[in-house]
């Protein structure tokens, strides 16, 4: 079988492989845990496979009822981005609540100490 790679496929493949190698190195150095490594391999592996076999996205798209592979990729990307933003907002909200709790405890410290003394 004779494959002809386009430039964008090679770039995506190169970036995906580099990022997977980087994740492996970071895991060996103890800066990433095993779960994070698996997640990185999964995400960038999917990119690498789709870059190598672009028609695969059309095949998967058809399974999910999309006409074109690009529509499927855009829809999935939008969902992932939306979920990520929501996750960040929730996390920020939680952090803000914790900061408020801390600030409140500092403000009430004197009253609590006075109450304990009595």
């Amino acid at each position: 079988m004779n494959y002809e790679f386009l430039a964008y496929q090679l770039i995506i493949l190169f970036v995906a492989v580099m990022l997977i190698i980087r994740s492996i190195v970071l895991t060996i150095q103890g800066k990433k845990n095993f779960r994070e490594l698996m997640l990185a391999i999964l995400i960038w592996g999917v990119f690498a496979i789709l870059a190598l076999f672009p028609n695969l996205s059309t095949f998967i798209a058809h399974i999910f009822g999309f006409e074109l592979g690009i529509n499927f990729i855009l829809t999935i990307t939008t969902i992932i981005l939306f979920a990520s933003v929501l996750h960040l907002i929730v996390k920020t909200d939680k952090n803000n609540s914790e900061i408020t709790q801390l600030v409140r405890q500092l403000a009430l410290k004197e009253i609590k100490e006075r109450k304990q003394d009595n």
Partner: protein
Amino acid sequence: MNSNNKVYVIIPAFNESKAIGPVLDNIKTLGYSNIIVVDDGSKDDTYDIAQSKGVIALRHIINRGKGAATQTGLDASKLLGADYAVTIDADGQHDPAEIHSLLTPLLNGQYDVALGSRLLAKNGMPLSRKIANKIGNIITYIFYGIYVSDSQSGFRAYNKKALGAINTTFDRYECEAEVLHQIKIHNLQYIELPISVIYSKYSMNKWKDIRDVPAQTFINGFKMVFKMIIRSITT
């Protein structure tokens, strides 16, 4: 008023050095000696002025918003053994003489919470604010299933039962609506009472200057709705 009842007046304040002094003087003149000022990370002399007036001055080391400061004040009143707590704004837009009107139905044992309503009073608010407030009321009803005439009012009174039940988690102006939600959850008896509103040149101008502006503006209204949606999804 029965002198055995411990009434605490709670004033969340952010950069209110120009107004807080006269507000405290007015409240003290009316005979309320238990006053808690929660300075919400002000950059001006708000905290020092409150201290100089001999009230309980608490300080948030960084600004956390009106809701957070109000809850800190309510927590402080609980620690100090309050029977009743009244929250009032620091900018002088509320008339301290009306504290007694809010407390009366609570002292009679009929209600747990008294909500001051600027819209029930004859000299209410400007039309633009009335519309914004109405929208806020509808949004509060949609999210929390409780409809009141002034969902954003900060002039409220609570008895001991309500103080024990209410614990808000929103930091900014969404907390006023959250209180209503908790009133419903804990099945607290509440009454709405008309309160006058004093829109002084100072209180009108300061909204332009400070970061944590009231929810009556539409932009903050949208922010409020967004936060409420996020909370309703995630909790």
